[in-house]
């Protein structure tokens, strides 16, 4: 049976992902641009400003806020070093205390605070984050350049983490073998898979490990 082609931006079954962060992926990004088939214009270049909420107590839930909307993904499994993440919840501000209590704080895996209001604005939510020493809001600005290599969705990205610059590359697909072939083609087979949570925690000094280069 022919495999279904991935469509950038479309919702599909959970994808596996290779991603890494460092200062120099010039070779990989050049190869990515050369091997890529043409991609829709809307993914040529994308800019976004996001806030990640980091929790000291876990590395399995990835919470970010973009355009006033909260999105939590949860780690499902890793196969051959490639990671699979599933959407856990999506919410919008103002957000209800019920959602914070039953979905968001359990994802942070920290003590659930007392809620004295029915709903919370984004500013109020940030104030709650600031008051918890196990949580931290981190500003992330992304300039992403989309490609498609070996039927995998690829990107090269310039990323500012609290204003400091790193470079990221990734390849994601429902098909493991397609990602592995892409990693080989891009000459990043031996590069460590580093997801956003790991990269941010390393930069802000929560994990004392270097980035890929």
């Amino acid at each position, binding site marked *: 049976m022919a495999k279904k082609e991935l469509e950038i931006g479309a919702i599909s079954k959970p994808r596996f992902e290779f991603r890494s962060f460092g*200062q120099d992926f010039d070779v990989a990004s050049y190869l990515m641009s050369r091997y890529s088939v043409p991609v829709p214009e809307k993914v040529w270049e994308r800019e976004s400003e*996001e806030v990640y909420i980091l929790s000291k107590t876990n590395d399995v839930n990835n919470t970010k806020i973009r355009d006033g909307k909260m999105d939590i993904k949860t780690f499902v499994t890793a196969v051959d070093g490639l990671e699979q993440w599933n959407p856990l919840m999506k919410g919008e501000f103002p957000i209800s205390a019920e959602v914070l209590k039953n979905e968001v704080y359990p994802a942070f895996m920290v003590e659930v605070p007392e809620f004295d209001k029915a709903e919370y604005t*984004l500013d109020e939510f940030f104030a709650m984050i600031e008051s918890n020493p196990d949580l931290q809001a981190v500003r992330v600005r992304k300039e992403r350049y989309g490609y498609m290599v070996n039927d995998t969705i690829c990107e090269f990205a310039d990323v500012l983490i609290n204003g*400091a*610059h790193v470079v990221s590359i990734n390849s994601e697909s429902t098909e493991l073998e397609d990602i592995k072939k892409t990693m080989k083609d891009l000459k990043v087979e031996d590069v460590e898979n580093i997801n956003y949570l790991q990269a941010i925690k*390393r*930069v*802000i000094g929560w994990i004392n490990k270097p980035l890929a280069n």
Partner: protein
Amino acid sequence: MTHTTPRYEFRLFGVKEIDTFIESLQQQGTAGKVRHISEIYLMTAGNSENNIKIRNKLLDIKTLVRQENGLEQWNPAEVGTFPLAKEKIKNEIFPALGVESPALDREVYTLKQFMQELILVDPDIKVALTEKKRHAYDFADCICEYADVQINGAFVRTLAIESENPDLVYNAIERLNIGKDIENVNYPKALKRVLGLEIDYDINKFF
């Protein structure tokens, strides 16, 4: 401790916008040495007056003497080279960090023991590993530099103007077209922002 004369300093950090000022320094200044330096900064949320770093096993603490009309005067002082006696660690380093000293079991600590047993285990202390490529310049009778800096692997650029005479620093700032709205950001402040130890009220501009 050894002491040198404190200089007045203006420093800024950035990624792209700073390049204009660096180009101006390159055009007008006289280039000096280029140095590659690896340093460990020790950071705490409550400390803004002490710049604590380790280079080649030498720990030094720069203390903020005064802030005056947009400039800062720092007093550099060498604490000592590792291995360091526990008295120095207890009486000089932890007070400068602004956190309580833990019980010190050893009489003397190597750098590795200091980092592993006292620093990395303390939830109130964060470590910033920096790799700097520093380009020295003479400009307008000031000691200047720009540097490419990696902070825990993430990149920023910095430009600094220093002199014992604050008027010379003001003159250099003006000649580099650095506007009065540009904030003077010292190393600890920049590191604290990247590490998230200083609350960034700018966060709301994203929404």
